[in-house]
């Protein structure tokens, strides 16, 4: 019996809750029954499950407040998860401390959304790109190799050696994203978490960066967790897609399945809302009403019921679980059981 290699990323019941309101002193309130300490909690991520194999690109989509960025940052261990398991290349790192995380950081790196805030304005490009690598090098011999590696990396992302000595403000948005990508590649990771990497770029530059990311995946066998709100970008780059709403994953499917047979009403609404340059692209019209509820007080039962055109009383009583509906597609929606209610 041979063991299949563990997935590059295996997330089970991942939870990330933030308590708001500052320290104890700031949360002190004086009510009718005497002093008390308030504990407002933002439930940003609520039990998310998915895996990513080596070389696979998984996208997480959703609108603002859905928790996709928080998932990304929790996986990158910028935050420590408040619940669940987080396996990177087989190893559960959810509870790791700083020293235990350090070797894991050679396997996983991140690229960020804002090309203007993701590079330290006071550091030269070569220092920025070398930073993750330098944390992993122990001997002087290794450290001496670093400048050469940096040069090679810059070339790989389409920059040249003379750029190494410059500062970020001397580069355009697209070039800065390339620097960020070079930085992530410096430790030759197996997984790159990409948090909206092209959202802040002009359309023509977006294409360059997306092509670059795909080429790097083909060359190095990288896995990506690709966060985006833009369905058309995701359609282009992802192998499979998870749709998030209010911290829950409501649907997860391979790309072609999701776009041709979306099951969850929210996914269908997203697809219907996306503007397209092609005339009369044939799309279902689902218009959502209202606004997204606050993550401070989640609706009971299904998180989407307050805006769902199909919701009925079961949706308020019972939270739907993510269920397999075949072809690698999972959906969390009661309509699966009662499809006759699916009338616009």
């Amino acid at each position: 019996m041979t063991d299949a290699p563990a997935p590059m990323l295996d997330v089970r019941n991942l939870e990330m809750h933030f308590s708001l309101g500052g320290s104890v002193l700031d949360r002190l309130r004086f009510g009718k029954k005497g002093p008390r300490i308030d504990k407002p909690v933002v439930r940003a991520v609520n039990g998310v499950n998915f895996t990513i194999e080596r070389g696979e690109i998984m996208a997480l989509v959703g609108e603002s407040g859905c928790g996709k960025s928080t998932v990304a940052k929790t996986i990158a261990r910028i935050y420590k998860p408040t619940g669940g398991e987080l396996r990177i290349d087989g190893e559960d790192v959810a509870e790791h401390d700083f020293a235990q995380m350090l070797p894991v950081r050679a396997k996983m790196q991140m690229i960020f959304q804002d090309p203007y805030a993701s590079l330290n304005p006071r550091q030269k490009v070569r220092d920025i790109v070398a930073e993750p690598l330098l944390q992993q090098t122990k001997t002087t011999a290794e450290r001496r190799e670093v400048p050469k590696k940096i040069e090679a990396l810059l070339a790989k992302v389409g920059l040249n050696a003379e750029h190494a000595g410059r500062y970020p403000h001397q580069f355009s948005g697209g070039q800065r994203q390339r620097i960020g990508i070079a930085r992530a590649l410096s430790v030759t990771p197996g997984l790159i978490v990409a948090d909206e990497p092209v959202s802040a770029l002009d359309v023509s530059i977006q294409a360059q960066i997306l092509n670059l990311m795909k080429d790097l995946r083909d060359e190095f066998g990288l896995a990506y967790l690709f966060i985006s709100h833009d369905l058309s970008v995701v359609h282009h780059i992802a192998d499979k897609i998870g749709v998030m709403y209010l911290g829950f994953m409501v649907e997860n499917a391979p790309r072609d399945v999701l776009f041709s047979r979306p099951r969850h009403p929210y996914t269908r609404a997203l697809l219907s809302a996306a503007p397209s340059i092609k005339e009369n692209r044939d799309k279902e019209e689902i218009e959502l009403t209202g606004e997204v509820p606050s993550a401070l007080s989640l609706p009971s039962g299904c998180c989407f019921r307050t805006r769902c055109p199909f919701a009925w009383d079961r949706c308020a009583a019972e939270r739907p679980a993510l269920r397999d509906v075949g072809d690698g597609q999972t959906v969390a929606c009661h309509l699966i059981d009662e499809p006759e209610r699916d009338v616009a």
Partner: protein
Amino acid sequence: MTALFQSEFFYNYRRSSSAMIGSALMAFFALAVLLGPFLVAQDPYDIAALNLMDSYKPPVWLEGGDPQFWLGTDGQGRDVWASILYGARISLFIGLVAMVASCFIGTLLGLIAGFYGGLVDSVIMRIADIQLSFPSILIALFLMSAVGTGIDKVLIALTAVGWVVYARTVRGSTLSEIEKEYVQAAKVAGLPNHKIIRKHVLPNVLTPLIVIATIQVGTFVLIEASLSFLGVGVPITQPSLGLLIKNGFDVLFSGLWWTSVFPGVAIMMLVFGINLFGDFLRDELNPRLK
């Protein structure tokens, strides 16, 4: 150097008359302070060089004035001009040292409060609030009654009050910098917290401090002058400009105005110059929105 002269900063500097006047005044005092002792014949604090016969000579343009003492002399025959130069040294020394100490302590505390947040942040900020409710004069009085006067006591009093503005500013900047993605990238790269603070946060919060520090020198000069005027500042053996004003104050209303007024004018010009330049710096270093 050439980069400075070709920079946008210098371009705007040349177009701002207030900046140039301000820095001219500052340069004047800097020179006076450095070269002062060589420019005046008399060391006003060398008793042997004084001559009581020279006492209370008015400025040279008034009747009874002596060209050797162009701004006049005080009760002991000290040249007012020389006293100003020596006094400015002390005033500036106090202002600069207190500024540096305040900046160091305040920045450190501000970084810690902003980066770690939570209880540490609350405690540091409450201490800062308490500190601010004590005027430096009160602290100096307390110190004097406990351990006597002296330049070091003045420095302590000034620093005790001065660190708060740095801490608050740095804490604010830190709070906003740690949300930025390059700090998160450093975490993902595996940098320990102290390195993140030192290499990433600190260099990016320094800019507003330049303005605060510049203007604070002027503020400290003034506070020290008040302290000395009230007698809880520098000792008589090392008179600052403030103490000079006080010394001359006693005879001010008998018409011997120059021993008090000229040191006062000197303080005013020094602080005015600092403020002018500081205002220019503040506008220049303000990050412009794209």
